[in-house]
């Protein structure tokens, strides 16, 4: 019988606590810390059922290890989540994996990484205050149903809300 070799530092996962601290700053990002890897989130996950890559338990494990580099990339697996919240229903620890995944997407956004389709909708909202663009054709359609034209959104107010906190307001 051969003697097991002594583990070297290369075999041991180094937890990146800085990544976890950054995630914890996002709303509900800290919930991942309560994950004990039971896998209850996987069974009812529609994305996991139909994708070979997406697995909410694995994503929570990467978060626990702080393996951000595997998630903070273009075409990240995070954007395969359907946001159905089945995982949150099943989680015995109230981790809300879907919510942690959105917090991770907030970190992706900080790196200016978005899927093109998502970015288009985000930009439409930031420009117009709506996610579906207005046009004269829209108002003509509405008129057919006896509905008044769409009212513009007070963008002066919305733009002010989108600005990050000032020094005076304190950190977020």
């Amino acid at each position, binding site marked *: 019988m051969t003697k097991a070799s002594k583990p070297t530092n290369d075999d041991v996962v180094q937890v990146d606590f800085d990544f976890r601290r950054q995630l914890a700053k996002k709303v509900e990002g800290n919930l991942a810390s309560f994950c004990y890897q039971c896998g209850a989130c996987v069974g009812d996950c529609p994305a996991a059922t139909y994708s070979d890559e997406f697995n909410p338990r694995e994503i929570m494990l990467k978060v626990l290890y702080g393996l951000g580099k595997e998630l903070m990339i273009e075409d990240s697996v995070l954007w395969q989540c359907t946001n159905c919240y089945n995982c949150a*229903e099943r989680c015995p620890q109230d981790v809300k994996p879907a919510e942690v995944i959105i917090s991770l997407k907030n970190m992706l956004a900080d790196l200016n990484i978005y899927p093109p389709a998502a970015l288009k909708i985000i930009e439409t909202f930031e420009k117009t205050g709506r*996610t*579906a663009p207005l046009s004269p054709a829209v108002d003509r359609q509405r008129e057919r*149903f006896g509905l008044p034209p769409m009212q513009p959104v007070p963008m002066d*107010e919305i733009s002010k809300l989108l600005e990050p906190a000032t020094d005076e307001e304190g950190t977020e």
Partner: protein
Amino acid sequence: MKPFAFFPGCLIPVRYPAMEFAIRQTLPKLGIEIVDLEGESCCPDPIYFKSKDKVAWLSVAARNLTLAEDLGLDIFTNCSGCTATLSEAYHLLKDDELREKVNKRLKRIGRKYKGTSRIRHVTTLVRDEAGYDAVRESVVRPLDGMKMAIHYGCHLLKPSKIMNVDDPNNPEVLEKLVETLGATPVRHRNWYLCCGKACQQEDIPLNMMRALLSTVKNEEAEILCLICPTCFSQFDHGQMKVSKHFGDDFHIPPVYYFQLLAYAQGVPYEKLGFERQRFKPESLRRFATSSVQVES
């Protein structure tokens, strides 16, 4: 009539005004007064903008809620996405620290979030304020025996501790509402599946929709009744993609519940905008003359 502030959102008034028309036609007949808000924006959406910045997302949601607070009214939504965003904001802003952060931003525009207006999706508003019997009594042409598959979608029910709408594992509100029309609800085997719209890898929603539409077809349901405009776009426009991709021909028209109710209450088929759908619920026409009293 009991007044409620109406939050129409973006997708329904912009892309599917027929759904808004149906809401405005049906609710007053159930004793619900619709009060329009002024200056509301996108909720903002719980998938895309929320993924950019949760604090900004919460701040805009809170601003929308303050518009109803100013009127001293509860707010009702007709879109599951708006319901998710506004309900989550209501839930998260019970946290003092988060509420303070958001109120610092709202202070820039002279507003303050108080948390005094509750959020109700229109289906639960009808269930809780009018009741199923009132809906049944408002029907002048029952859709007797029409088999309707049910699609709840995700955000009406989950996360259940925040939405507080129904049992997410065994909900009944949509079945009950379909029954009030005289129709027969069908809970197909894949009823709990998501529409997949939020997923940015196209193969996943295509496969999901195919699985769902297959079970609806197996149950011989004539239409797919749903209550969310995003699910609608998936099962209408998206159904074409599924057919093209897999060569299946399901031909299952998705229909927003309140258009069905408007029809059952006597609004003519031609006025309900069905001609704009890829898959048209033509089978409804067989009830066209079954009414005692049909509106002109």
